[in-house]
Structure formats: C-alpha cells, structure tokens
C-alpha cells in the first residue's frame, strides 16, 4: 500500500513539475542546432511569441572561396527572462533541418564562445545589447550564400518562448584574387604568451606590403592600435602589451597591398605562467638548507633561553666537606706572594656589604679576611 502511495506521489510530482516548466528556461547549452530545434515546442503558437529584439548584421557582403570570413551581429533586446539567457543561432536557412552553415559549405572556425558551434547561449547585460562574432571559412564554390541570425529567449516569468529571425545576409562568394593579401599559409597564430612577456608577436603574410594591427583585452569594446615593425620579407613584428594572470588579448590584422585591404578575423592569445625552472638537486639542497637553518636557530634559542645557573647550583659545600673528610694525597701549591697580592688588589670593598669583597674578574663575592680584625 505504501509502495503504491509512493509511486502515486512520485508520478504526481513529475506531472506538476512538467506543467510548470516550458521549454528549457535554464538553456540547453552551446551546440550545433537547427532552427527552433527542428519543430519543437517553440513552433507551437500557444507557447511562443515573436521577439521584439532588433538584430543587425554588420559584416561585409563579399567573401573569397576558402578564406576566413568574419560574421558580426548585434542584438538589442528590451525584455528578457529573469535568468537573462539568450540563445543565438547562426543559420543558412530556417527550414528546421539542415540549417547549420556547415551544411551549406561554410566551416565555423571560431564561435563567440571560442568553440566551433552555430548555437551559443549568452547572458544579456543590463544595457540589453549583445555583440557576437563568428569566424568562418567561406565555401569552396563560387556563388551566393546566406547567413541568418535567429534568437530565442524568455521574458519575465511568463512561460512563452520568444523567437526572432534576422533578414538573410547575402554574401557573394568570389574566387580568390591572385594577389589577395593575407596570412602566409604556413603561419599559425600563437595561442599563448608567457605572463609578462613583451616580446613582439611575429606575423607572416603573403602579398602584403603593409599591415596594421588593433588589439583589445577580451571583453573590452574599444580597440587600440598596435605598433608594427617590418622584419624580413613578409615578416612583421607586432608589439602587443604584456598580459598577466588569466588575461586574454584579442588582436586583428588588416593586410594591405595598395589594391586590397583585407580585415582578418580577430585572433585570441591567452596567458600562461612561466615555465617552472626548479631542479631536483636544487629542491633537495633547499630543503636540507631549510632544515639545518631551523635547527641552528632553535638550538641557539635553546642555549639562550635556558635557565640561568642559580647560586644553589654553584654551592659545592657538600663536595668540600667530603673532600675534607678524606685525607688529601696531594697538596695544592700555595699561591706565590705576587699572585696573592695581585688577587687581593683586584678585590673591591663596598660599605653596604661589610665582611664581603667583590671579585670583578670571577664576578663573585668573597669573604673579607680582614673584617672584624683591623676594622
């Protein structure tokens, strides 16, 4: 009976939780997805509504076959769910299947999250403006291609999914001109630099007579020009500021040759800590040195902090009495007259200590043999 009740309660709880949950308010995570999840609940008019967000695309309308192309979009959104999650698709169609640009010959090199997917989820900042960039390789075939931005999000605590789709952005895919300036084919951008490293980044190009570079820290909106020095043939030394900690710098190269100015995609460079230069022998030596120094310090402190010898400890009356009881076999030489006189001369007399004389050499009081006699 109890088992049945438990089962009933469990089923009821599951049903209640599904009623209270529409779609995935916590997001589904980044991934490769078709438009509106291929006809999921977002397509149901009772569960979805058009978004009031504005989607703008600022990329160029020309790409060369097989070369990098940067797609930039800015989304301005005025109402968003409590979690502020916004899902953004980069698509080539809105059929519900085969919508991924990669299904249309494009290749995603980098998405806004640094991975290679067409759907990302971002947190909308308080100003409601989100700028995202995808870096793609254009299809190998000459022709026209479309790229579309679609978004979905919630609003307030309502259970509706809000959908928005941009106008298709047409791109003419042209053959690569013979003298198009760009990166050398065998050059790859450095992924990391050691923290604090100010050495220039070496950029290798082809067909370029001049390059300019702008940089910014990841997350910054304003970019700064970098100093570029010409090196050997088709080699450029780009001076970028050193980064520390987990800082990541992004930079963009514009390659020019008087005929074409090609703005290359943003490249990201992280920061890594310097290589550890410790050795086993050094570690052992340093460990032993630490041990010996601690011992030296504490042993010295032990000597300094030990209790001072009290007078009782120096009292050897007992030993003297024992010695007197036993017959002496040897006689200690009497001090010579000179030694005795010198000893007596160094003794100091103080009025406040009658009967005693102070020996400053041995630092002790001795009996005054003359006390009670002459004085």
């Amino acid at each position: 009976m109890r088992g049945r009740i438990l089962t009933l309660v469990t089923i009821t709880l599951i049903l209640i939780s599904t009623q209270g949950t529409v779609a995935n308010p916590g997001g589904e995570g980044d991934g490769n997805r078709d438009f509106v999840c291929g006809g999921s609940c977002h397509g149901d008019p009772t569960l979805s509504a058009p978004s009031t967000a504005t989607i703008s695309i600022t990329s160029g309308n020309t790409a060369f076959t097989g070369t990098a192309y940067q797609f930039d979009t800015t989304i301005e959104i005025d109402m968003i769910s409590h979690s502020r999650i916004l899902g953004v698709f980069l698509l080539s169609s809105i059929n519900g299947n085969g919508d991924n640009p990669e299904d249309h010959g494009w290749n995603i090199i980098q998405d806004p999250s640094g991975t290679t997917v067409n759907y990302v989820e971002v947190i909308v900042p308080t100003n409601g403006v989100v700028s995202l960039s995808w870096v793609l390789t254009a299809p190998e075939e000459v022709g026209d291609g479309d790229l579309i931005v679609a978004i979905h999000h919630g609003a307030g605590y309502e259970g509706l999914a809000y959908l928005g789709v941009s106008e298709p952005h047409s791109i003419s895919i042209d053959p690569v001109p013979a003298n198009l300036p760009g990166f050398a084919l065998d050059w790859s951008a450095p992924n990391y630099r050691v923290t604090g490293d100010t050495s220039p980044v070496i950029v290798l190009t082809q067909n370029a007579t001049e390059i300019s570079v702008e940089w910014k820290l990841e997350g910054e909106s304003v970019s700064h020009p970098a100093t570029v020095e010409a090196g050997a043939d088709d080699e450029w030394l780009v001076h970028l500021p050193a980064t520390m900690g987990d800082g990541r710098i992004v930079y963009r190269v514009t390659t020019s040759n008087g005929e074409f100015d090609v703005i290359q995609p943003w490249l990201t460079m992280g920061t890594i800590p310097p290589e550890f230069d410790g050795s086993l022998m050094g570690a052992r030596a340093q460990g032993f040195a630490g041990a010996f120094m601690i011992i030296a310090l504490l042993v010295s402190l032990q000597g300094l902090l030990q209790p001072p010898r009290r007078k009782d400890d120096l009292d050897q009356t007992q030993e003297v009495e024992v010695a007197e009881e036993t017959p002496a076999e040897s006689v200690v030489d009497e001090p010579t007259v000179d030694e005795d006189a010198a000893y007596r001369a160094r003794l100091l007399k103080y009025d406040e200590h009658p009967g005693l004389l102070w020996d400053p050499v041995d630092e002790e009081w001795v009996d005054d043999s003359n006390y009670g006699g002459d004085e």
Partner: protein
Amino acid sequence: MFSQTLHHLVVGLTTGIATLACLCAIAAWVSNYFVGAKNARTHLDTASYIAAIAALPLLPIAVLSGTMAMSDPASDAMSYNKFLFAGLTTGFLASMVIGRWRFGPGVWNDSRLALLQAISAIGALASITVLGSIGAKMTLGESTMDVLPFWPKFDDSVVVNEWLSLVLLLLGIVAMVVAFRLGPKTERISAD
C-alpha cells in the same frame, strides 16, 4: 608502481607518528597550566620524545620513496614545495628532539624552554599538515584544507638558483655547527 605503494605506506607512518609526537609535545606544554598534571606530563613527554625519534628516520624514507614514485620530481611547483616543507618538518622535529635530549624531561619545567619546545612542535605539525595537503592536491586534486579561506596556493614556489641552493645548504651546515660548538653550554634540568 611499488614505489607508489611504498610511499603511501611510509607517508602514513611518518605523518601519523610525527603528528602524535607534535600533539603530545603541545599537550605536555599545556599541562604546565594544570595543577596535578605532572604524571600526565611525564607520559606525554615520553610519548612525544619516542614518537619524534621514530619519525625522524622515516622522513627521508618518505621523501626518497616519493621521489621514486614520481616520473619527474621537483619539475613543478607543487612537488618542489614538498621538498621544502619536508626540510622544514625535519628541522622542527629534530630541534624538538635535540631540546628534549639536551635538557632532559625537566625541559617542560622551565616556562621559556617549554614554550620553545611547543613552538617547535607547532611548526612541525603545521609543516606536516601542509605536506599532506600538497600530497592530496597532487593525487586527488583537492584537500580538506581547501575549506580554509587563507590556505596558500601550492602552484607557486620559492625557487632559487641551483648554485644558490647549495650555498644556502652550506650556510645552514655552518650555522648549525656554530650553534652547537659556539653556543652557550647547556645542562639538564631537574625534573623535580
């Protein structure tokens, strides 16, 4: 594989025995503040002395087995720190044993020397705790000490040049010899 197992065994023994030595020494010092704790102090002192003597030869064995268990020891900050803290632990433990040996069981009767012994014990205990924590970080990726907000990060270390390390080692040996040979003479303190 055998060195790893041996290291686990020796580390368990060393840590346990050294912790016992330190805790007993601290308790012996604290017992000074309780009337009628003389008997307990005697037992704590004996336990601490024997445990510390037992832990001292185990420490280098633990270091050696750890070195054998690693493919590239001291090649990163964490394992480098293990060597440094093993040195500190040895220094504090040895000082504790030397103090007890030089002054006898009466060392706890003198307030200043008792405090120095307790400081040595606390230093050794802290170093052992850090050693264990680094070990846990290396093998498990976390340590129970992570809950403390002020626990230092072990992915950084104080590395000096190899030759400078040798100079420091020489300096340490000289300092130790000077402390023993030229320092004040000590006498055993009466336990009564």
